[in-house]
């Protein structure tokens, strides 16, 4: 595989790591990458082991699959099992365990569960199957809300009667605030979410330096982006600055995507509160389908059980999502809880910290360094 592009250049990486190591000195640094996409990049490219040992990357709550509580999965399965319902979902939600198994299990038991790549695909299924009711399982941060919003708009324009959205959309700022409020965390700064910021811009993070005195650098998803962002965070400290910076300026505009934000405001509204897996209820942290679109709101059209299910006892996902413990510190990590038999959500999504660590990161630091720096064969 040839990665010719400028964002994966090993020489540039070495230069950055050298500079990072110098600025970092021997202070202990703890930076949280908010976004699951970053967690995935960090492990997929072995970045943890490239950084000096005194820089720790703490994996944050920005994995949309990881934060969905059990009760919502149970509701999703209940919906999927209703007669004449076609339940559509993104692929990686299929394996998330509820209290009675996952959507994959529901499918194996006969429910019509299909995975789609976009909510518009799901609307297409509705148009093609007028005798079925098609539900779209909407998950994700502000990144994926616009596409659901567009779909709602299109459904209304087309006058589709057999389509609804089960919204589990969440917003990124409230959990960051919750983490900053939590007493047991000593973070030095944040790698801000890249994709989310393309929509919301970089202004919503200003409270982090202003109120909590921590720098934020909105980061891209290529391995060099991560290193460059860590570098920028350290440079803020070195220069006595504390602010929101944008490393991902090639994609993220400071004001975000105003058209998308407007569309979101038309089709969605804030819920008073929403339960996050492991983090509990966070107020104004999630979106429901707007009252104007109630006909397309699965929560209005169906009376779901809506039961709150306690997380499994063994599960420490909340601690992992807050960055309070490393994935491997969870007691069931890698034994009772594996990607094959996940107990918690962080083990399901490839962006979840537990899955990323299990799938990619399970190497002794020295082994990793030796293998990584070994001469290429051949």
């Amino acid at each position, binding site marked *: *595989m040839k*990665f010719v592009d400028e964002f*994966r250049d*090993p020489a540039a*990486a070495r230069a950055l790591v050298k500079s990072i190591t110098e600025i970092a000195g021997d202070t202990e640094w703890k930076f949280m990458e908010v976004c699951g*996409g970053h967690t995935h990049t960090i492990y*997929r*490219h*072995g*970045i943890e*082991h*490239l950084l000096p040992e005194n820089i720790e990357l703490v994996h944050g709550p920005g994995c*949309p*699959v990881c934060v969905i509580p059990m009760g919502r999965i149970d509701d999703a399965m209940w919906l999927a099992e209703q007669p004449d319902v076609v339940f559509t979902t*993104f*692929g*990686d939600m*299929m*394996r998330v365990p509820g209290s009675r198994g996952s959507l*994959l*299990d529901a*499918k*194996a*038991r006969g429910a019509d569960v299909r995975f*789609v*790549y976009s909510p518009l*695909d799901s609307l297409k299924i509705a148009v093609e199957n007028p005798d079925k009711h098609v539900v779209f399982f909407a*998950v*994700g941060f502000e*990144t*994926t809300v616009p596409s659901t919003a567009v779909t709602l708009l299109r459904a209304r324009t087309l006058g589709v009667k057999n389509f609804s959205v089960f919204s589990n959309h969440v917003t990124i700022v409230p959990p960051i605030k919750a983490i900053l409020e939590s007493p047991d965390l000593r973070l030095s700064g944040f790698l801000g979410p890249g994709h989310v910021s393309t929509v919301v811009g970089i202004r919503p993070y200003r409270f982090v330096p202003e109120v909590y005195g921590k720098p934020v650098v909105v980061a891209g998803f290529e*391995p060099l982006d991560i290193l460059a962002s860590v570098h920028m965070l350290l440079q803020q400290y070195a220069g006595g600055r504390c602010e929101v910076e944008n490393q991902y300026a090639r994609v993220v505009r400071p004001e975000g995507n105003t058209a998308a934000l407007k569309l979101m405001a038309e089709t969605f509204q804030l819920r008073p509160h929403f339960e996050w897996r492991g983090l509990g209820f966070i107020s104004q942290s999630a979106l429901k389908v707007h009252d104007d679109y109630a006909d397309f709101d699965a929560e209005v059209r169906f009376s779901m059980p809506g039961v709150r299910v306690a997380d499994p006892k063994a599960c420490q996902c909340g601690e992992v999502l807050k960055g309070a413990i490393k994935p*491997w*510190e969870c007691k069931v*990590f*890698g*034994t009772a809880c*594996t*990607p*094959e038999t996940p107990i918690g959500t962080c083990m399901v999504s*490839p*962006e979840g910290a537990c899955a990323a660590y*299990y*799938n*990619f*990161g*399970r*190497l*002794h630091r*020295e*082994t*990793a360094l*030796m*293998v*990584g*720096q*070994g001469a*290429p*064969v*051949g």
Partner: protein
Amino acid sequence: MTSERLTPSAHEVPDPEDRTRIRIEEFRKRRPRLVDEVVTMAHGAGGKSSAALVDHVFVEAFRNPELENLGDGAVLALPTGERLAFSTDSYVVAPYEFPGGSIADLAINGTVNDLAVSGARPQWISAAFVIEEGFSIDKLKQLAGEMRAAADAAGVQIVTGDTKVVPNGAADGLYITTSGVGVIPAGRELSPLAVRAGDRLIVSGTIADHGMAIMLARGNLDIEADIESDSAPVNGLVEALLAAAPGTRWMRDATRGGLGTVANELAQAAGVGVVLDEGLLPIDPTVLGCCDMLGIDPVYVANEGKFVAVVPADEAEVAVAALRSQPGGAQAAVIGEVLADPPGIVAMRTPFGGTRIVDMLVGDPLPRIC
């Protein structure tokens, strides 16, 4: 490289993270558990769930030494001392026609390739058809013609067969099962136990073409790309390789589960560590682009005309040259090496200078959101 210690030794007090790692490795070595009550799609995807199903249901019921090797084909010794390879496979691909091939040539190539990587010269094939009521006879004729052409290309004969028709709705068009028999020339010994630290891994060409072609051909992705399946017989390539590199230790065709799964099977069966070099993996740029876009790791995407071979380091160069001189082998490359340590683990060296694990895949590769 192999003289260096890769895992903490017993007399050293491991840190808590290492202890977790050791516990996980012990856990991974256990037989995969079968926890499900009903068969799910994951049981057919070639990863850990498939292994669990096969192990707990079929091996349990059929147990015998030939079966327990769980190779691509059984190696059977005749009373005369000659050895045969015997293999079988079912083909249920949807759609049954796709860019670069169809269920017909897959059914021939798949079985031919299973025999070839067992070290055999494939000779005879059987074909059984399960056909859904309503299937077009013209289409059937066309597919039979394609099977014949594939058999001719691979130098095998279709010598026996069976046909069943099931009611409309009881099958998805057409399923084909082929079995094949090949003769293993005297003196050919291929086994994971022959693999040694320092050996090189070779792949016979670009990876991930077939799986990506199928994913796109299903048509529910809004991606237009020119990707063709790599469906092809590899017996010619295998013969060229074995002639050039007689020390070849082991081979396997990288079908379902892709290169990553084959590398893991090797690491586990041989009790060695395997390092793959991401920068050396031959992959078509369009295929790589699609994988990136879908968040799918190309090392887990299926191939239908590629195999992985382990050869001694000093034969690697001639082996690759021999493959490259053959039709279909132009992209053959050394892609990694075998280490003594850490046993059972496949690691990927990224072009970025980092390292990651390549584990067995769980279930089908599902595209990520966003």
